[in-house]
């Protein structure tokens, strides 16, 4: 690591160039936004940014490694299945959201800034799927985390500002934790390759390896860092704040793509075989899945509801990852990625639909609501949808009670998406019909969610598709949705409708008290007066001088000075004798 290999041409990467281009291209697009001629309508550039990534994902090159030793501490990029899949998903979502944004954001504030940071966020988001070394990963992760701040804050309303403030505080906290975790791992492995880092975190104690406590600390910090992004409870609180505050296309990418950066981080970095960690993640993840639903049901903002749904879904994914780690099961980790992919498309479609609801009337609106219902069902795992495949893929990771919980989580998922549907149906229409650029992406994303899992099944799961046609699987897929419909029916039944008052939980639930506490802490720190020495005051010095001055007055008369001279003679004589 200390002496990277030298390139013949400085900065020119070794290996395939395309992955580097995937990352550089959006940056160039972002920079273009600042060019005078383009500055007026930079939003139009947005769809261009993810195109190379999408092409790369579609091309599906063989596993290859690209190195750029001069950049950062030596950039290494790889294209493995999981990474490419999620890369493709991410690129697609960003493309869709970008197209959507052209229509949605007619007169945005500071379009150039928005475009620039959109592209920067995108770069980071793509980078996490390609990175094979910790520093590149970290840089990408930081880019996606921090640049997204500008997407959240874009509207500039007080609400947006507050949400963004909390978002950035948490993001930086997460970054810091992650950095420490990485640093420990790098120190333990003396390497930057993610694979080595992973290995060192479970390496048995011994010469040249990390102390178990350090390993534990690193793992914990990595979980905190990525969990924060992935909305792992109780670190989820930014999601319900940021999503409603951000412009809709931004919400879509936040929930559909950016959150996945945390997921890929957990998958990439957590070492297999860490049983305790895995179990812990499983517990927290499942708990998240349920609690988030309960919290989400109390919300009345469409995007907040969706955000809690994301938290819930990600809980599930994290539980899968936990299970995979605990069981040292790479298949489970792959499945988690698969599940995340489906969720990404579905959630992107759902978020984008929020904007569509306001501009759709008549039959189109009914079709839209039906589509939303179908997507919701897919997420809940309705057989035949892409979501069912996703559920099926992750289930082998669980058994017993956990499996039951996973299956039953469909109830919550359905409920919360029903809540969305109900709330969405109440949205008042402001415009006559939707622009194609808004409708198109929603449809495309929805279709991707429903269909792509079918296409990719074979890549992720060795089992034949036929397995899904089994009765057990069908029942498992349907009953939670039915239960949910039942509950919803009861709740919405005339006698109860409008009577049930959930507790008034603010968006972001625990965010408010935490925020108050943080503000109080900062204020306390700010007002603290440290004992800084300021001793250079003359007056104090002068006090020291007073005795000297008195002595000086005493010595001045000759009778004293002369006597002292005589005394000195005697003393010198005595000292010499």
């Amino acid at each position: 690591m200390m002496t990277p290999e030298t390139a013949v041409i400085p900065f020119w990467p070794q290996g395939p160039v395309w992955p580097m281009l995937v990352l550089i291209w959006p940056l160039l697009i972002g920079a273009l936004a600042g060019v005078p001629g383009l500055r007026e309508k930079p939003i139009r550039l947005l769809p261009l940014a993810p195109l190379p990534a999408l092409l790369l994902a579609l091309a599906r090159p063989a596993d290859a490694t690209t190195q750029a030793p001069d950049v950062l501490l030596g950039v290494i990029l790889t294209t493995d299945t999981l990474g490419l899949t999620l890369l493709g998903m991410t690129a697609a979502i960003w493309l869709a959201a970008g197209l959507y944004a052209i229509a949605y954001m007619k007169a945005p504030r500071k379009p150039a800034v928005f475009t620039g940071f959109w592209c920067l966020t995108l770069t980071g988001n793509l980078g996490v799927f390609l990175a094979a070394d910790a520093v590149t990963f970290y840089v990408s992760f930081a880019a996606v985390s921090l640049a997204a701040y500008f997407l959240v804050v874009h509207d500039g309303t007080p609400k947006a500002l507050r949400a963004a403030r909390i978002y950035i505080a948490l993001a930086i906290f997460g970054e810091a934790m992650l950095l420490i975790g990485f640093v420990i791992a790098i120190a333990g492995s003396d390497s930057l390759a993610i694979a080595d880092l992973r290995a060192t975190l479970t390496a048995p104690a011994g010469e040249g390896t990390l102390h178990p406590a350090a390993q534990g600390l690193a793992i914990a910090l990595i979980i905190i860092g990525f969990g924060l992004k992935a909305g792992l409870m109780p670190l989820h609180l930014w999601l319900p704040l940021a999503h409603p505050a951000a412009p809709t296309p931004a919400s879509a990418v936040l929930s559909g793509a950016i959150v996945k950066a945390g997921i890929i981080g957990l998958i990439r970095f957590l070492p297999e075989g860490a049983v305790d960690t895995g179990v812990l993640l499983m517990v927290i993840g499942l708990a998240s899945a349920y609690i988030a639903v309960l919290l989400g049901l109390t919300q009345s903002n469409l995007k907040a509801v969706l955000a809690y749904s994301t938290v819930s879904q990600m809980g599930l994914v994290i539980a899968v990852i936990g299970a995979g780690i605990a069981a040292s099961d790479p298949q489970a980790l792959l499945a988690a990625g698969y599940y995340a992919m489906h969720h990404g498309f579905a959630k992107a479609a759902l978020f984008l639909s929020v904007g569509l609801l306001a501009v759709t009337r008549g039959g189109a609106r009914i079709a839209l609501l039906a589509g939303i219902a179908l997507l919701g069902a897919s997420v809940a795992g309705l057989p035949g949808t892409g979501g069912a495949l996703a559920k099926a893929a992750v289930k082998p990771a669980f058994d017993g009670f956990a499996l039951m919980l996973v299956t039953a989580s469909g109830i919550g998922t359905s409920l919360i998406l029903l809540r969305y549907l109900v709330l969405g149906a109440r949205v008042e229409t402001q415009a006559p019909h939707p622009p194609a650029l808004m409708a198109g992406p929603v449809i495309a994303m929805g279709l991707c969610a429903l269909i792509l899992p079918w296409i990719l099944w074979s890549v992720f799961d060795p089992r034949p598709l036929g397995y899904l046609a089994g009765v057990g699987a069908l029942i498992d897929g349907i009953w939670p949705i039915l239960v949910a419909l039942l509950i919803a029916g009861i709740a919405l039944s005339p006698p109860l409708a409008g009577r049930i008052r959930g507790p008034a939980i603010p968006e972001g639930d625990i965010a408010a008290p935490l925020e108050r506490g943080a503000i109080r802490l900062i204020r306390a720190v700010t007002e603290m007066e440290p004992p800084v020495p300021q001793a250079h005051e003359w007056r104090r010095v002068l006090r020291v001088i007073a005795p000297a001055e008195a002595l000086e007055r005493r010595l001045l008369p000759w009778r004293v000075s002369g006597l002292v001279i005589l005394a000195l003679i005697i003393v010198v004589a005595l000292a010499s004798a």
Partner: protein
Amino acid sequence: MTASALALALILTAPLFGALAAMLMGRRGPAIALATIIATAAGTLILLVIIATEGAVHLAIGGWEAPLGIQLRADGLAGGFIATTALVMGAILAVAAKPFAGGKTERRSAYTFWPLALLLWGALNAIFLSGDLFNLYVGLELLTLVAVALVGIEGKRETLAAALRYMMFALMGSLLYLLGAALLYAAHGTLDIALLAERVGSAPGDIVAAAAITGGLAAKTALFPFHAWLPPAHSGAPAPASAMLSGLVPKASFYILLRFWFEAAPDLAGSGVLMLLGGLGAFAMVYGSLLALHQDRLKLIIAYSTVAQLGYLFFIFPLAGGESAAQPWAAGAWSGAIFHALSHAMAKASMFLCAGLIIEAIGHDRLPGMKGIVRALPMTVFAFALAAITLMGLPPSGGFTAKYLMMTASFAAGQPFWALMLILAGLLAAAYLYRPLALAFALPDEDAPAPKAVSRARQFAPLALALAAILLGILSAAPFAFIQIGRPGAAVEGLE
């Protein structure tokens, strides 16, 4: 006619001739001074070259060898002091040319200043070259009377009181020195330093003589606690006189003290006496610095600084005297003290000259009035700052070299106390010199009267002195080697 005789004759007589000429021709003072400077400088240069190339010069006056005659001896030490004196006197007299200019009619102070100043120079040179204790006495008396006269030259009540006060110490010092010399002669039949070195033992007579000489010279050198006369005397005199009094005069009595303890009576120097002298020096450093901190007049600050700085010099006794004399570090300690004496002479003279120019510009030397003086006298303030650097012992200056050498010696000798005192004194010096400097750099008060202009040429003299003090530090190697020439005691050796 030999070059060394010519050099010595020039150095000894040129200032005296100059003084007599100035006494005769009242209004030609500056011109006579210039001629004196040239002649003395020429002699000094020749002497330096001779010492550097051939070693210490020895000359029996009238051809009478000791013990009958008086011996002149010019070793590296003497050469260093003579050269420094020439430099300092040159600068002082250059600045003095204006306030003490001849004019149409003869004025009292303008008349007496020049012969007095030149006599002072002559007395200094006589002392630095003399190898005979009684001859040193006469030279010392000449120096003292001239110095007293210069203190009182302003003719104000305070300056006369200061002169009288100085006179008391000086008279006492002279008598005690004479007593010591008489006892030494009575015991050993000679006052030649080289001969005494062989004869002085530790008989009661020697001890009483040493005690009397030490007491007398300490009073003249203004070693604490005999310094009471110094601040009023040095601050009351006109600036060029102060510069001589502070920069040069105390060095002469110190020089004799050095010659006495290191050359005439090295065996007598017990650790008790050496520690006593060093201790008083240390006390003087702290005490003088503290009082300097509290003064509100620039010249008083500089004067108390002299009290403090003279204290440094006495570290030479514990570090290079007695049993230390034969140790490897003695060379460093000895040279360090000499470096200090020389660089202090230049820096202190420069400071007093600066103070004089400031007084010319603003009419007084009270600190608050100095605010913003840098605008009117940039070179002067810069010179003052450079001199301050030397006094603080900061590199690269002669003061630093001195401090470095003495500190090294004190650690090597296992007496780090002196080193710590040196550091402390440097800090205190920084503190008391900082005040005037900071004020000089501050923005002037808006209602302050505009300072009078002072010509650049005159500002250059103190700057040259301050630069010389700095140069002494940058080019330490040559002077270091030079003042080792003929050094008593251990052989010349480098620092370990």
